[in-house]
């Protein structure tokens, strides 16, 4: 066990993978000498060589496409997109190739790979360095989407993703890269894909959240001594339906928190699943506290992100409902 921040935990996971298996390859923009713009791959190129930690030209569709081709040919690529905001030129490769190859080839061709990318706001990045685009991936059958909220899960999920056998979109909440710290095992361990975690037990209200909003939610719950059941989803596709339904059945009151825009954000699907499968357990409306349906602003990002005021308003509203 070592105390690490999320950047260090991810670096340690990749270091481990690279050292263990020669077929593991990293590729992305500025990930080599520069160590990545967030330093997540720091030191790995000098340790493992330029052909294993590849500084790529500025072409996201090429990064993703090449990684798919590598995965099809016996390598185990971990590709990085510098900011999730810049992933869209590779969207066709992701939706039409990566997600569909197993299906369309009757299982003859598969794409075991991980596509890492930092997402979310709170670092003064404006429209193009703050987006939370998880919906674009979580709506796409054939993909698996995970997002850690702490260093332990970050390393454990990355190690699991590399053994998953199918492509995993690995969303890293950049706001937590250095602020989130915790004990991380030095060796190998797994955080299972598809399993949410009940990170705080409570009986009066369920707060379902993930990624960058987890520490915010926990702080508020603690500060206000709310008797909340808090779920950290960890995997966004497929959602952990059992964890969601269990907490709803326990509390009957649900608040969903994420920073992606509300309309068709993850909250929509979570809410719909509950309205479909646990309507009788509900003791009030399902509320969503999310980013608004606008681009992400440079100034006033503290207003864009769900904050104490808004989360408490929703929590109080469902708790006093009826």
């Amino acid at each position, binding site marked *: 066990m070592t105390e690490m921040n999320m950047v260090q935990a991810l670096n340690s996971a990749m270091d481990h993978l690279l050292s263990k298996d020669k077929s593991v390859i990293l590729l992305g923009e500025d990930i080599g000498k520069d160590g990545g713009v967030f330093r997540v791959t720091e030191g790995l190129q000098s340790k493992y060589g330029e052909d294993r930690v590849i500084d790529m030209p500025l072409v996201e569709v090429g990064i993703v*496409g090449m990684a798919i081709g*590598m995965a099809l040919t016996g390598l185990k*690529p971990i590709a990085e997109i510098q900011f999730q905001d810049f992933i869209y030129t590779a969207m066709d490769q992701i939706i*039409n190739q990566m997600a569909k190859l197993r299906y369309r080839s*009757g299982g003859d061709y598969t794409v075991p790979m991980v596509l890492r990318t930092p997402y979310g706001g709170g670092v003064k990045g404006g429209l193009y360095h703050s987006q939370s685009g998880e919906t674009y991936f979580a709506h796409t059958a054939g993909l698996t989407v995970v997002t850690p909220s702490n260093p332990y899960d970050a390393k454990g999920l990355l190690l699991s993703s590399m053994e998953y056998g199918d492509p995993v979109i690995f969303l890293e909440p950049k706001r937590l890269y250095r602020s989130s710290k915790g004990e991380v095992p030095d060796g190998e361990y797994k955080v299972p894909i598809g399993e949410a975690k009940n990170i705080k037990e409570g009986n009066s209200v369920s707060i379902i959240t993930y990624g960058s909003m987890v520490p915010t939610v926990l702080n508020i719950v603690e500060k206000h001594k709310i008797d909340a059941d808090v779920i950290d989803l960890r995997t966004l596709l497929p959602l952990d339906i059992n964890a969601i339904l269990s907490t709803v059945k326990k509390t009957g009151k649900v608040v969903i928190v994420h920073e992606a825009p509300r309309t068709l954000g993850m909250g929509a699907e979570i809410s719909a699943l509950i309205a479909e499968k646990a309507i009788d357990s509900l003791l009030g409306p399902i509320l969503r506290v999310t980013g608004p349906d606008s681009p992400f602003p440079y100034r006033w990002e503290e207003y864009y992100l769900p904050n104490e005021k808004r989360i408490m308003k929703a929590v109080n509203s469902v708790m006093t409902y009826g």
Partner: protein
Amino acid sequence: MPEDSEERNKFIKAYTAMVLSRTLDRKIVTSQRQGRVGFYTPTMGQEALQVGASMAMETADLIYGYYRDVPLMLHRGVPIETIINQIMGNDSDRAKGRQMPSHFSSKEFNFMSVQSPVATNLPLATGAAYALKYQKKKNIVLATFGDGSSSTPDFHAALNLAGVFELPVVFLCENNGWAISLPVERQTKVEIWTKAEAYGIKGVKADGNNFVDTYEKVNEAVKRAREGKGATLVEATSFRMGPHSTSDDPTKYRTENVEEGSEKDPIVVSEKILKQRKYVDDKMIENIKSRTHKLVEEKFNECEKISPPNPSTAFEGVYKNTTWMLKEEVEDIL
């Protein structure tokens, strides 16, 4: 007739694959009109260039092809049943009819599953070539695409990366003059092979109607790739003798056409080449054609009898581990 020679065998094999493909093409198009097949992208006119390219490849080399590559597959040894079953989408199709006709796949013969969005196989081919190079394998990658596909993002990405990393990949542009209704002159202002220079890779033009010329050009590119000398873009010019697909009506946009059996038909050109070298005579040609015809009829009828896949297969194989949602949804559906 001269003695059997290696070249003679090769050429006859090449010619036979072309005839087989042409015969199959005609059969499928006819069957489509009769409602026995849902859709097809005829390959007529591109037989010589594909077979020429295939002649330069080993089975362990990887092909990242496109929807018109039937002649290439057949020459490579992919069983005709694989083609027909895919088109039928029957129970013997590896993909269980999930894909539209013309979206072939043969892992056995290292022919990558075909997607519809054009040219998006090219970055994959680049990645595969990177892997082969990294693994110090001697095999190489051949990636094919049409003239229209040269305008795409993926073309640019793949060729530049192949240049930067000096990868063992051959990009074969099958220039049939058209992208559905857009003639190649309206697609781009220059000859496609010249675009290689923009990526620091080799560019070469082949007469795609002449399988020998295409073979030689592709073979040289393959050699360079195997020797670690990097990528080549080969443009093989040919004709799209048929419509873009069975859904297409070329009379809307096209005035001239290369007729079957005319001077420019690559099968006719190939016959001339084989005859010139005295590898075949008219009788042998007749023989090949009638054997082929019989084979196609037989196989087609056989494959047509294969029952459809179970509907459940339409929703299987999305993941290694099916998601709970899909399980639930399929239960509701079936």
